C-alpha cells in the first residue's frame, strides 16, 4: 500500500486550473462547431444543410432568398460541414459552450434581395432565464446522474470528470448515489420510452429546489435519434431544464462549465454569435 502512496506523490499534481482561461481547450478536440456567417454564400448554406446528418443545419428557400437555421444543440460534431466548407464553419476549442437558455444554441440567418447572409434573430433571451434559487448551491453541489438512453460516450466523459486532470471534487461538486441528497439532475441520452418512467421517478424523489442539466446532443435535441420512435424526449419536453451542455459527447471541461453555469459560478458565452465572445 505504501508503494501506491509513493506512486501518487511521485506523479505530482496533474490537475488543470480550469475554469481559468489559460487551460482552455487542452483536451485536443473541438467542443463545438460554429458557422462563420460572413464567409458563407447562400449556395454553400443550402449545400451544408444537405450534408448535415442531424437537425443542426436546416435550410429553406432558394439561392436568391432563403434562410439557414443553426442549432448547436443538435450538432454531433461529425465535421461534414467543416470539411466541405472550411471557411464557413469553424471548430471551437474553447470548452465553455454550455448555455442556460435553449434558444441561445439556435440562430437563423437570412439572405435575399441581393443581401448577403446576416444573422436575423439573435434572440435577446437573457430575460427569459428566470432567476431561481440556484446561488444556494454555489459552494457545493450534489449531482444525481441519470442515463436516459445514451451511447455510453457521455458516461465515459462523466467518469473522466473525476480523473485527476479535472478532479471536480476540488470545486465542491460531487456525484451522489441517491436522489434524496441531490441538488441537480444531470441527464444524458435521448430519454427512451423504457427510461422515461425511471427518469421522472428519480426527479420526483429529489428535494426542491432542484436543478436539471441536459448533457449532450441526445438530451438536448435527441441528436442523431430525433426520428426514433423509441425516444420520449428531448428532455426539456418532460422537465424544465436549467442548463444545456452541447457536444457528442460533451468534453469533461464542457460538462464542468455546464455545472458551474447552472449554479451561476460561470458565465455563458453566446454560441450563436459569430465570434462567440460576447454573452447575452
Amino acid at each position: 500500500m505504501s508503494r501506491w502512496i509513493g506512486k501518487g506523490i511521485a506523479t505530482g499534481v496533474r490537475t488543470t486550473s480550469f475554469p481559468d482561461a489559460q487551460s482552455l481547450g487542452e483536451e485536443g478536440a473541438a467542443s463545438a462547431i460554429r458557422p462563420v456567417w460572413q464567409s458563407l454564400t447562400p449556395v454553400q448554406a443550402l449545400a451544408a444543410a444537405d450534408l448535415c446528418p442531424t437537425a443542426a443545419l436546416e435550410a429553406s428557400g432558394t439561392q436568391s432568398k432563403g434562410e439557414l437555421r443553426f442549432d448547436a444543440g443538435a450538432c454531433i460534431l461529425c465535421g461534414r460541414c467543416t470539411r466541405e466548407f472550411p471557411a464557413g464553419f469553424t471548430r471551437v476549442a474553447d470548452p465553455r459552450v454550455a448555455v442556460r437558455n435553449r434558444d441561445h444554441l439556435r440562430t437563423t440567418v437570412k439572405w435575399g434581395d441581393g443581401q448577403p447572409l446576416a444573422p436575423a434573430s439573435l434572440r435577446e433571451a437573457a430575460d427569459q432565464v428566470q432567476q431561481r434559487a440556484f446561488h444556494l448551491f454555489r459552494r457545493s453541489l450534489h449531482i444525481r446522474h441519470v442515463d436516459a438512453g445514451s451511447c455510453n460516450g457521455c458516461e465515459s466523459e462523466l467518469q473522466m470528470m473525476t480523473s485527476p486532470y479535472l478532479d471536480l471534487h476540488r470545486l465542491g461538486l460531487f456525484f451522489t448515489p441517491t436522489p434524496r441528497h441531490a441538488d441537480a439532475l444531470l441527464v444524458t441520452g435521448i430519454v427512451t420510452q423504457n427510461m422515461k418512467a425511471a427518469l421522472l421517478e428519480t426527479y420526483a424523489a429529489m428535494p426542491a429546489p432542484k436543478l436539471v442539466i441536459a448533457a449532450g446532443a441526445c438530451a438536448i435535441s435527441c441528436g442523431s435519434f430525433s426520428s426514433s420512435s423509441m425516444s420520449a424526449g428531448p428532455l426539456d419536453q418532460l422537465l424544465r431544464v436549467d442548463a444545456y451542455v452541447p457536444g457528442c459527447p460533451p468534453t469533461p471541461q464542457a460538462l464542468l462549465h455546464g455545472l458551474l453555469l447552472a449554479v451561476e459560478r460561470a458565465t455563458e458565452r453566446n454560441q450563436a454569435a459569430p465570434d462567440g465572445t460576447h454573452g447575452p
Partner: protein
Amino acid sequence: MTRQLEQLVASGGLQVAWRRQDEAYAQCRQREFADQVSALARSATLSDLFVATVPPAPPRLTAVMQMVGDPAWLLLSTELATKAFPSLTPKLHAASWYEREILEMHGLEPLGHPAPGRLRLHNWPADHYPMRDLPFDVGSLSQLPRSNPGPAVTGQGVFQLPLGPVRSGPQESAEFLFFSGGEDIVEVDLRLGFKYRAIERLAEGQPADRAIQLAERLAGTSAFANGLAFTRAVERAIGSSVSTVDEHTRTLLAELERVHSHFGTIGRLAEATGLLVAASQYGLLKEEALRAAGRLTGHRYLRGVLCVGGMEIELEAGPRDELKTQVAGWVERSAGLKRLLEQTTTFTDRLDTTAILLPDYAAAHHVIGPVGRASAIDRDARRDHPYCAYHTVEFAVPTQADGDAEARFQLHANELVQSLRIMLQLLDSWPAGRERSAPPAGRAGSALGWAEAPGGETLHWVELDQEGSLLRWRARTPAAVNWHPFAHACGSGNNLTDFPVIEASFSISPAEFDR
C-alpha cells in the same frame, strides 16, 4: 484450394456459393435449418443468428458461422414461410438470446425454446414488434418495465435485491435483480433494454455514408470499431477499395480505441477494489489517450473520420511522431502499474476466483472477446479474419485459462501491451503517399463487415439498394453475446460485495447491447 469451411458445409449436403473470397453463402430448407446449424456448430462457432426482412420477400433467417483454421465466414440462411421456426437452443445454447431477440423484435417464434422471455422490451404489449412494424404506439408505456417476472428463486431466507436501472454513479442504465440469502448471490436476473433506441431501424432508408454516424453511436467506447465494421460491410457490398495509408490509419485508430478502453477497464477494476491511487493513475492514462485521439482526429472518441472508401483525415508526420513518443511512455507506465497491482494483495485477493466463467461454459455459449479469451477461447478477429493492416504487424493473442476476474484483469493488461506494440509498428512503417482509391463497382449489394472491438468481435451485415441507401442493417455487437455469460458468472458463488468487481472485469456496455 479446397477450404475447410467448404468441406464442412458439403458434409451436410449443402452447396456453397462464394460471394467473396472470405464470405460464403449457403441455403437450406426451413425444417433442416436447426439440424444443419447445430451439426455445423460441432466444429464451427455460431457468431450471429438474425432475421432480415425486405418486404415483400418473406423473412430470412441467417446464421453467421466461422471455424478455426479458415478466415472465411459462412452465412447459412433459410426463408421462413411461417411465423414460427424450430428453435436451435435445445441443441445449441449459443442461439438462445439471438432467438429471444428474433421473437421480441420480429414476432417470429422459436418453437421449443426453453425460456423465450423478453430481453429488452419488458412490459410492452405483446403484439408490437419494433423491427417488423413501426411507428409504435407509445401511449400505453408509462410505467417502469418491471412487470417481467424473473426466474423465481425460492428457499429459506432468500430475498430479492433490485439494483438499477438508475445506478449509483455516472454509469449506464441497466437493472440487476439479485436473489440472495444474505451475502451470497444465488442468482441474478438481468434486465437490459432500458436504452433501446432502435438504431438499426432508424438507419433504414439512409444513405450508407450518412449512417456511419449511427454505427459510431452504438456505443461510445467502441465507437470506432463499430463504425469501422459497418463501413467495411458497406465497402464490401459495393466493391469499394481502400488505400494503404487509410488502412494503416484505421488500424492505428482502432488500436488507440482499444488502448483507451482497456485503460478505463483496468481503472474501474482498481476503483472497484478501493485502490483510488491506481484508479487515478489509469484515469490519467485514459485521459491522455483520449486527448491524443482528439489531437489526431478532432474527436476524443474518434467519431466522424471514417467514410466509405477511406478516411476523412490524413495523419501528418508531426502528430504521428508525437503519438509515438506518447505510446512509448504508456508502454512503460502501464507495465509499472500492472506490476504494482499484482503485488497489491487487496487487489488480487478480490479478483482471485471471483465470477468464474468456466472454459466449458464459455465454449458452449460461444463467448467472445477478452471475456472469452480469459476463459481459454482463443479467438481474435484481428488474427483469425485479418482486415485493414493487421496482416502487416506482429502481435500475439493472449489467453488465460482460469476464467475469473483475475484472468480477465491479466487479459486486458496483456492485450494492452500488444495493442501498444501494434501502434508502434504501424507508426514505424507508415506508408508514403496517398493514392486515390478507385470508384466502387456498384451501389447495391449486401455484405458482412467485421472488426475486433475492445469488447470482442463486432459483426455488421448490411444490404443496400440501387441508390446506395440501407435496406437492412444488422449489428451484432460483442455485448450482444457477452451479457449472457455475465449473468451466469455472477451466480458462481460470489457475494453481493463482489458485484462491482464482476461488472468492471466484464466491462460490457448496456448501450451496445440494447442498441
